């Protein structure tokens, strides 16, 4: 069967992938450069009998998504910096109550209203630590059209599987650019649907062993359950008992950190014999790929580690590479965020350097090349 190649905008690719992944609820508030996701969903979801609603703000949008998710829906919202900031309290709610939901954050220049129409990669640490309290988080970041599609599907699947919010990071460049893509057949897409919780009178909705992923719990399944933003016991009822709180904190952390193999994903480019490694993601990784080729032409053995999973950080994978590679250049459109992680993971014998910029202008391959050249000098 001949497949059709299409030219589509990044936001639309993400929206299409969401529908393919089973998304049947969207609530959002318009914001550049993410609004096309909402616009697409407003036209397409009702065709399938699914729900779309434009809420009064981003706090409300994520609230509505969580409510819908608890009612058995697969929910999506999309936003950018200012809206992502507003969503932080509800992100924490989805973490503590263990509710699947996917949030697309298309990064633009900040802080505050900042540079609405210019790209940035400056919400990397906000995605990790924006909501208060200790918590695990999953954040993915595609760089190319086919990755936007596959990572969006993966975001929904991970969210369902791990009972957790998942953030799909994009930047203004990849979200707004129109690129060609071959949309896979629905049949080829593996969609994960959590099994229903075998509820009983005792309502042990959160009861499980450490490291175990529980089946999904929804409302209206025959047993009236309670879901709380307060710390809770195995029934979901509020508690401040230190032993129970310890247990719940550990359960939430370990469901993610004991299964990193199922979450961490990355791509490598010309890394086999690389002596200098670029660590990058999103639009910056695109410049980095071209820079690797340019560097090789000039005899610099460069390679690229492109993170697709940003959080949890691919710590083990980088450590493995640092056994052989002693130079790492982080390239990112911010004033130094993921570089801190790279430095944390790098052993003492590894030289670290970063190419950073937060003025709304993406790096060119020549700029990355220049930075590599200075680094090997």
């Amino acid at each position: 069967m001949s497949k059709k190649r299409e030219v589509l905008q990044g936001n639309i690719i993400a929206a299409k992938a969401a529908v393919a992944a089973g998304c049947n609820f969207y609530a959002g508030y318009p914001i550049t450069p993410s609004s096309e996701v909402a616009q697409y969903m407003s036209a397409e979801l009702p065709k399938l009998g699914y729900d779309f609603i434009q809420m009064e703000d981003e706090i409300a949008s994520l609230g509505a998504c969580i409510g819908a998710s608890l009612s058995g829906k697969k929910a999506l919202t999309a936003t950018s910096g200012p809206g992502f900031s507003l969503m932080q309290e509800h992100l924490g709610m989805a973490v503590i109550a263990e509710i699947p939901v996917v949030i697309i954050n298309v990064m633009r220049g900040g802080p505050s209203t900042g540079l609405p129409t210019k790209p940035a990669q400056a919400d990397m640490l906000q995605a990790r630590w924006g909501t208060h309290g200790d918590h695990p988080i999953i954040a993915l970041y595609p760089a190319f059209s086919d990755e936007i599609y596959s990572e969006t599907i993966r975001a929904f699947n991970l969210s369902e599987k791990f009972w957790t919010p998942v953030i799909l990071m994009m930047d203004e460049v990849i979200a707004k650019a129109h690129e060609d893509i071959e949309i896979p057949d629905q049949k080829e897409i593996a969609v994960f649907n959590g099994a229903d919780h075998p509820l009983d009178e005792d309502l042990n909705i959160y009861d499980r062993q450490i490291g175990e992923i529980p089946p999904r719990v929804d409302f209206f399944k025959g047993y009236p359950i309670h879901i709380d933003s307060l710390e809770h016991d195995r029934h979901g009822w509020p508690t401040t008992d230190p032993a129970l709180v310890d247990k719940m904190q550990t359960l939430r952390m370990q469901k993610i950190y004991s299964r990193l193999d199922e979450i961490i994903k990355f791509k490598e480019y010309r890394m086999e014999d690389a002596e200098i490694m670029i660590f990058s993601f999103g639009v910056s990784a695109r410049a980095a790929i071209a820079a690797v080729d340019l560097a090789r032409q000039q005899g610099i053995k460069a390679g690229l580690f492109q993170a697709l999973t940003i959080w949890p950080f691919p710590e083990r994978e980088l450590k493995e590479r640092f056994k052989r590679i002693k130079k790492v250049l982080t390239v990112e459109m911010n004033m130094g965020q993921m570089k801190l992680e790279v430095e944390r993971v790098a052993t003492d014998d590894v030289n670290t350097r970063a190419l950073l910029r937060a003025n709304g202008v993406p790096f060119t391959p020549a700029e990355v090349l220049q930075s590599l050249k200075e680094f090997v000098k």
Partner: protein
Amino acid sequence: MRDYERYIRYRTFPTPWCPGCGDGIVLKTIAMAFADLKLPPDDIIVVSGIGCSGRMPTFFNTNTLHVTHGRALTFATGIKLARPEKTVVVISGDGDATAIGGNHLIHAARRNIGIKMILINNGIYGMTGGQVSPLTPQKFITETTPYGNIEPKFMASELLIAAKASFVARETVLRMHPLRQVIKKSFEHKGFSVVEVISNCHINLGRRNKLKDPITMTKWIASRSVTQAEYDKLTSEEKAHKYPVGILMEDKERLEYSELYYKHIVPAAKEAAAKQSAEGK
């Protein structure tokens, strides 16, 4: 076991409320309204934000959801749209509903989404220990207005009527019988409904304002509530110290949001889809 006790989750007792708090009356009255309507517990969801009143859903033996401060209506909106056939109830304190959640309140009213809201107005931030709320009367002493409150208060029900809520009623915790009737009526209403229940917080509001026990404070509440007909006859000066009780607005004609969505938007979209596929797009 009495009828309404089916709807009470005794496993999670005791409640955190102070002796004499009106919240207990509201809890029981809502359970009675559920029983009056014979609603299956699993077809009900009760959602709340944060506050003393926000703790109430824990004690209903229905689906229950305790969310963030002021945002219960947003979660309830998602639930109602996802499951329009369910009875979605929101319990909210006056700070929760009209300060931090004020924006969601007027938009839920404007949309006429079929959520049944019980707004417990005790005129104070109870849970945090007695700071001023947008519904605290002027001149009252609170923990954050030690020299008296200079801000005028919202009239919550009237604000909701202006925001086009299709069912608005006001009652007090002293009038349990009429309260049960209006809550029941509000549950039967299809669109967005709000029952504002004037309640007593003698501990955090009363104590600092010469209303320090439940009897004195509920008498004060009673002295201020009048029927709509009585209220209409008052001078504007007299009105400042009174509020009408009973059903203040009931519009049965306006279509409920999720009904409109499924009856109008979904068919229109499906028609567009059919047209697009016929044109080979």
